[in-house]
């Protein structure tokens, strides 16, 4: 960008920010240094507006006449534009400094860098060096991450191939569970909420259709984790994975030495059975008989036949 152009777009930005009423193109041409002598004013003005919008500046259009539907005036609402006053404590600045390096690559890294720059331009000094003994990393290895993240932030649909089939998804949320990235959203072909593993997406997802095409629902939370529906009473010894999501229960019958009796939950029976089977001889299902039988059947896959 030439110096003259930067100067002109900056002056346009300030003119639009500093006005209380809508300014028409004709007024802006008179006011803003750099427009007065431009021959191709219309084209230049359109380009300059596009330049500002690309920065994320919201330019409102409208008219000063409340009875008019004309949208021939322009202004920037200072509240839309400016970072509000905010002050951070020492501990908060240390946390922000640690957060600054969490994203190593990806859109997340660029966006965090920009956020930090804006906070520094507001006078905050994130403490980036104080605590080398804490390191928060958010690893992203999946090539599908960036296009989906962009689409999600723009509220735009994406299309990708998964299990050999083309899917159209309105992405609502990206989740990392056990180090694995998932995207949750509305599958428009099936008309249902679905989640996909990013590592399983074939090729690079493509944005489809316009931005702001949908609004993620306010209750994504409730659609995230189905409520665990299956329960079992299990005698366990030393299985952190099972014990982590368990509650101790009273059990009258004796259990082998070293075992404690707990109730464990799973989202469905196969998942619960798998967890118990993986514990091998360190878990014994006591109840219900249905889960107990399923575990025994599964163990017979390996332990049967002799």
């Amino acid at each position: 960008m030439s110096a003259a152009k930067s100067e002109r777009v900056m002056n346009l930005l300030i003119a639009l920010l500093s006005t209380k009423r809508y300014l028409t193109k004709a007024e802006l041409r008179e006011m803003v240094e750099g427009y007065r002598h431009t021959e191709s004013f219309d084209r230049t003005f359109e380009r300059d507006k596009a330049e500002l919008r690309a920065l994320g500046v919201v330019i409102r259009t409208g008219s000063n006449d409340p009875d008019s539907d004309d949208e021939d005036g322009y202004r920037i609402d200072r509240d839309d534009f400016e970072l509000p006053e905010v002050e951070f404590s020492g501990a908060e600045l240390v946390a922000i400094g640690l957060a600054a390096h969490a994203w190593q690559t990806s859109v997340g890294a660029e966006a965090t860098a920009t956020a930090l720059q804006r906070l520094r331009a507001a006078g905050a000094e994130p403490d980036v060096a104080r605590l080398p003994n804490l390191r928060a990393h958010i690893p992203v290895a999946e090539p599908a991450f960036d296009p989906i993240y962009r689409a999600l932030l723009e509220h735009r649909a994406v299309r990708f191939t998964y299990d050999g089939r083309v899917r159209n998804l309105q992405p609502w949320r990206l989740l990392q569970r056990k180090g694995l990235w998932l995207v949750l959203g509305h599958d428009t072909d099936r008309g249902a909420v679905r989640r996909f593993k990013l590592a399983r997406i074939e090729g690079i997802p493509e944005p489809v259709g316009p931005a702001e095409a949908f609004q993620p629902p306010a209750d994504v939370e409730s659609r995230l984790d189905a409520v665990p529906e299956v329960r079992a009473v299990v005698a366990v010894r030393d299985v952190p994975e099972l014990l982590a999501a368990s509650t101790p229960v009273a059990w009258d019958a004796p259990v082998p030495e070293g075992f404690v009796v707990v109730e464990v939950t799973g989202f469905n029976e196969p998942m619960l059975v798998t967890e118990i089977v993986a514990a091998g001889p360190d878990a014994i299902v006591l109840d219900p008989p249905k889960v107990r039988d399923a575990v025994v059947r599964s163990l017979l896959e390996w332990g049967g036949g002799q």
Partner: protein
Amino acid sequence: MSELQRLVLLVPYLRAHPGVTVDEVAREFGVTPKRVLADLGILQYVGLPGGFYGDLFEVDLGGAREYGDIFVRNVDALGRPMRLGRDEAASLMAALQVVMDLGGDDEGARSALAKLEAVTSLRPDAVEVEVATGDADVVAALKEALADGRVVQLDYRTGGRGSRRRAEVEPARLRTDGGYAYLDAWSRTRDGWRSHRLDRIDRVEILDEHVPPRDVPASLDTWFSDAGRELTVTVTNAGRWCADYHPTTAVERVDDGWRITFPLVSIDWAARLLLRLGSAVTEVSDPAVTEAARSLAREALAHYGGVL
């Protein structure tokens, strides 16, 4: 960053840092000092409409050239940086969330998050990262030991069965990676650097001894990298999930299924993976692993003696 982006950010930055040097600004914005002076040259002609003295920004360009420090005045029209956009807010908030988890509900991260939520009026929910940090008391004790530079004794479990261990270690760093939090430490017991998954540490005892200075490696090998052997398992489509949740060295499509190769850390770990996969397994490369799975299953079935 485009020139326009930089200029929009530069004005509030200079306002918030009176007397900042040309070199400091160059570092902050990743440009040359010459470029900084050129930017200041542009800003001289920027300001409120009118273009007269009093409307334009006042930039002491001569002072910047001669003394290297920068003073601006009358820049209130563009005195604040832009709001954080959705992408900036979402990324920074997700990162803060991880810092909060790593620090055991870190107070600074929690309140910074609340303030950011207030100034962005955006909900921090586009990205959600779950980190298994284990027991809150363990995290708190390790943070304390790190802050005081003290040696600790750890009681921990290894991935396999029945293996509780104790080690005396010099804590160097807490970190998150791939959904788990780790302690990187010099293990006196094992005489080497080790990473301990926090959710496998049962107890921490802070000892009355200070950690001697040591160079901490920038990155520590993850638990599986010192595995010398490999295990190849062929599974049907129903078993493909195991490649998503475990480190692999190869994943190959074969007739009616997948051939997946893992670094083999412990026979016990691999045997339990086979139990989990159940009937989805069609072939196992290492007979020792197959045998271990069989013996675990038989031992488990013995508990259900009455059923068989």
